């Protein structure tokens, strides 16, 4: 099969499965509907399940899809940025920063909200940005900043933030249950406003990444070669880092830490369609959306009426698949 046909087939598969995933997400849940009832209420805008479908299941499915797309896109960007297929969206500490902020604000018991984000989400978002920003500034103080110094500083700062989070949890064990939401990820509090917010981040984020995708191809040859081939390497690197950080921070602040999506999705997509970032970014986003949509579907149905944290599902499916991929070649 030619590369072109393979890609087309892959794209069709992603789209069909996504559509199927959305339909199942609308149908399945503690309140059961038949397919006929589902379609009747969608097309007529009436019926007893219409409210549930429109304001509970649909925003949740859309949010899961967008967070999956954001995480996979951020992962694809950072894997290219560090020239390392094992990088993930949280490698610079976005997740540790967010959970520190979330746990801290839970203990303060704040009750404000802005643009669909609760106090926890807001503070988590800010601490996440502050942590990654600090990591960047520390490593930029070195005259000859390398991707390695940034990576190592990120890992160290992440460990420090995790230690502080653990300390806060240890001091106030009663906050633990709420904190699990952050530490393992969940879409149980999904609302339309969050979905719109994420759409406003993911769509422009993808457009910028797509515009600079050739530069990411050049970066994979090494910074010096990229520059000699005409790419403004410093600027490009800054933009990509900012993009990945925003995508990861927004995702974590609405849904908590959902692992493995940002690591395995771009990696698996690269194995199927090749390393060209001009295609990798969009295919990763679509595949990431699908993966998280299905994971959330599993998370809220297998244990019904109670829910599994979605991070448990992504890791349970993702980890064995990843080990398989790694050992296949």
């Amino acid at each position, binding site marked *: 099969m030619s590369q072109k046909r393979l890609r087309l087939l892959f794209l069709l598969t992603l789209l069909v499965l996504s559509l199927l995933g959305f339909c199942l997400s609308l149908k399945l849940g503690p309140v059961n509907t038949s397919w006929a009832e589902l379609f009747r209420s969608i097309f007529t805008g009436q019926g007893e399940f219409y409210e549930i479908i429109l304001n509970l299941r649909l925003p949740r499915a859309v949010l899961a899809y967008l967070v999956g797309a954001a995480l996979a896109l951020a992962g694809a960007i950072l894997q290219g940025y560090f020239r390392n297929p094992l990088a993930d969206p949280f490698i610079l500490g976005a997740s540790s920063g967010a959970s520190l902020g979330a746990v801290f604000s839970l203990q303060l018991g704040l009750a404000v909200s802005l643009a669909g984000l609760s106090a926890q989400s807001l503070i988590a978002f800010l601490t996440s940005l502050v942590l990654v920003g600090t990591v960047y500034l520390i490593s930029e103080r070195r005259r000859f900043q390398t991707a390695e110094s940034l990576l190592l500083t990120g890992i160290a700062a992440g460990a420090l933030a995790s230690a502080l989070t653990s300390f806060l949890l240890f001091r106030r064990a009663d906050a633990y249950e709420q904190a699990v939401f952050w530490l393992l990820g969940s879409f149980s509090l999904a609302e339309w406003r969050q979905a719109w917010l994420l759409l406003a981040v993911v769509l422009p984020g993808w457009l910028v990444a797509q515009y600079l995708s050739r530069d990411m191809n050049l970066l994979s040859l090494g910074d010096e070669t990229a520059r*000699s*081939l005409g790419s403004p390497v410093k600027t490009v690197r800054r933009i990509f880092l900012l993009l990945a950080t925003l995508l990861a921070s927004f995702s974590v602040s609405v849904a908590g830490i959902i692992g493995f999506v940002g690591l395995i999705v771009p990696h698996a997509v*690269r194995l199927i369609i090749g390393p060209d970032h001009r295609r990798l970014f969009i295919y990763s986003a679509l595949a990431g959306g699908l993966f998280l949509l299905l994971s959330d579907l599993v998370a809220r149905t297998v244990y019904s009426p109670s829910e599994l944290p979605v991070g448990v599902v992504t890791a349970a499916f993702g980890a064995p698949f990843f080990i398989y991929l790694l050992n296949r070649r």
Partner: protein
Amino acid sequence: MKLLTVENLEAGYDSRPVISGISLGLEPAEFLAVCGPNGSGKSTLIKAIQRLLPVVRGQVLVYGQDLFRLKAREIAAWLAYVPQVFEPVFEFTVEETVAMARYYRRSSRFLARSSREQDLVIEALHLTGVYELKNKRLNELSGGERQRVLIARALAQDTPVLLLDEPSSHLDLNYQLQIYQLLKKLQREKNKAILVAEHNLNLAVAYCSELVFLKNGRVAARGRPGELLREELIRQIFGVEVELRLNRSTGLPEISLLHQAQRPAMEEKAKLLDLTVEPEE
């Protein structure tokens, strides 16, 4: 006005310069080799000309125009760079790798690749003899094949100047000759101005029109290979005793290694450490 003029170039990775006071010029169809011991600054010079290093002072001019005031994409229209062979991380194919030379040489990033763009890539693949490998992934190739792919990419960039960093390293005799014959052909047929950092003196002598020797980051000698290469010069620069013989077919000097020269530096070190032992009475 020269195609490429390097004036009083100083460069390094931090406050200590690796090379300094380097001036040289390059005309179209000129083939210049920069030689010298390891650490003398050959690769640093090649990179400094393109301002790829954190600290670069001095001037590089293309037809009198200050290169350091240009954007990366404008520099890419003048200079093409062949780095040392590296281990690729992502598995791009040969053709994809060569086509990357055109990313910033096109008028718009939204237009599809024109047939002229495609022709340049195909021509570069043919010239370097890697056309048959075009659908292979870079990490499936041997060192020699990879080196030729990197040269193909530089050719596809379609610039008047080629800069190559040790193009013969990692290559066996056969490939070394192939690469230099290819460069010679580009010099003659395409009027390329070529600057190579080269540690293989016999190759440089046989193919280049001018040699520049670096020692400790400064120009130690320069001239036409046949006139410049003397046993005394090699001793001064590399600290080895050699014998120069004339190649019977080319009439050019060739080096045969004899032994290491007494290194004055070693003697001084011994003195500093006071290693001489007084004979006991």
